[in-house]
């Protein structure tokens, strides 16, 4: 018996002295970053994908998780990767994108890639319930996930995640997003935002709101035509991987 569910393990793919930290999303696992990791590793980048606390084990662990635990897990990944790399770029999906932006505001990274990163909690009901969620979560622990949101049927099959959303997590996620919004004005690094036009949860408006908050002049949005929220799994993933690889190459080859 192991603690971590099959396929949900963190991974490390050693290659060159430029590293990419890959951060998975809320209720996801490092598994959803694996194809991206293999692609970047093939381009000579060392890749490390940590498991964010309380993910990839059992849903009930999420009831005890706080947003600071997730930031600490992402920081763990950064420090572990630092041992084999001179330059680091952080990339993340959804909540992993939020974590990428937070970490990049205070850690010496060369750039940051945020895929389908929300600017605020997308569900207005969860936003309105925010003040009572901690109390509510003591009685109403979790709600079922309708679907993974992945449009590619093959990717859907190999996806490893929880089948429900922890109610407490809805509160913590909003706290985390508030931290991100207050950190964005300090994030003076090259930023690539990748979003999907068809993402029903994190709509293109989220990307624009993050874009507007960034002080950096080196910032861009790549809007994908195909696929849904789970960009590194879904139909336009190759376009996203290539853009990410080119971005890493550019920001790590420039002086400084």
């Amino acid at each position, binding site marked *: 018996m192991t603690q971590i569910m099959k396929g949900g393990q963190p991974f490390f793919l050693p290659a060159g002295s430029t590293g990419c930290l890959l951060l998975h999303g809320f209720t996801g696992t490092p598994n959803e970053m694996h194809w991206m990791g293999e692609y970047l590793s093939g381009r000579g980048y060392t890749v490390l994908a940590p498991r964010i606390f309380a993910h990839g084990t059992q849903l009930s*662990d999420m009831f005890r998780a*706080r947003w*600071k635990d997730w930031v600490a897990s992402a920081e*763990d990944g950064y*420090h572990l990767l630092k041992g084999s790399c001179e330059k680091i770029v952080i990339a993340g999906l959804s909540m992993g994108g939020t974590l990428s932006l937070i970490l990049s505001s*205070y850690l010496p990274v060369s750039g940051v890639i945020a895929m389908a990163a929300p600017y605020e909690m997308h569900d207005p009901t969860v936003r309105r319930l925010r003040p009572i969620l901690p109390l509510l979560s003591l009685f109403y622990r979790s709600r079922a996930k309708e679907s993974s949101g992945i449009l590619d049927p093959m990717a859907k099959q190999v996806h490893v995640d929880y089948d429900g959303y922890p109610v407490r997590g809805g509160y913590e996620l909003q706290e985390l997003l508030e931290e991100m919004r207050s950190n964005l004005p300090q994030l003076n690094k090259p930023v690539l935002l990748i979003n999907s036009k068809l993402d029903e949860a994190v709509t293109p408006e989220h990307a624009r709101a993050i874009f507007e908050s960034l002080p950096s002049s080196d910032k861009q949005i790549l809007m994908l035509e195909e696929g849904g929220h789970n960009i590194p799994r879904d139909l336009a993933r190759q376009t996203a991987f290539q853009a990410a690889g080119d971005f890493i190459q550019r920001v790590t080859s420039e002086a400084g």
Partner: protein
Amino acid sequence: MRQIQSGAEPFFYPGGETGCLLAHGFTASPQEVHRLGEHLAQQGYTVLGVRMFAHGTKHEDMNRARWTDWLTSVEDGYHLLANHCKRFFFIGSSVGGSLSLILATRFPPAGVVMLATPIRLPPDPRLERLKPILKPLSYLLPAIPKGPPTWHDPQAQVERVAYTAYPLRAILELEPLLAAMRSALPKVRVPAFLMHSKNDRFIPSEHMQQIYERLGSSDKHMTLVEDSSHVITCDAEREVVFQNVTGFIQRIDTSITEGV
């Protein structure tokens, strides 16, 4: 704002095909095994020192931790090493040694090293009386201060990165953790190496003797040091500890590589 305290960061030094997974103790941080890790990296081993969940941040975080979270932290470290290494040594200080041993029943390493590792909670009359109400009490009194330090090397005390209080709720988690360790002991058959200080005033060295006796391994050794307190990886005789641990790993590693 950074969540992990300065000096409490986990570490990873990629090297050869033999990987050393280092686990620190209760309320400590990766700093506790960092020098040992550097020493092993200098010998050419790949070294990874994990941060146990809720350690190295704020001690309040620990009251949300369950012992299985700590086991998962060690398991994370194993998976990160797994793609890079062919053989593994699980090495732990204090309760980190207990976790290393439990992990060894799930992913068999080439060898396991337990340093100043307890076999059960040391008897504490205060704790015995409070145990039935410890969970509710922990909401009112989240932590109790640690006793006076007993370091033999005052510099090691200065360098120490650890919580200065014991989180009350988290102490309860040590019981199922150590029970899991005791049931793992006879199942572990891989070579094992134990070290402890005679002058450990926190976990008496009899614990090492009892772990030794219950271990399923046929290749098992134990060594005592004297001029150290509980944290033998940092205290006055740390160099002796580093050499003994390295000697054990080299012996097993060579026997495997030459045997193949």
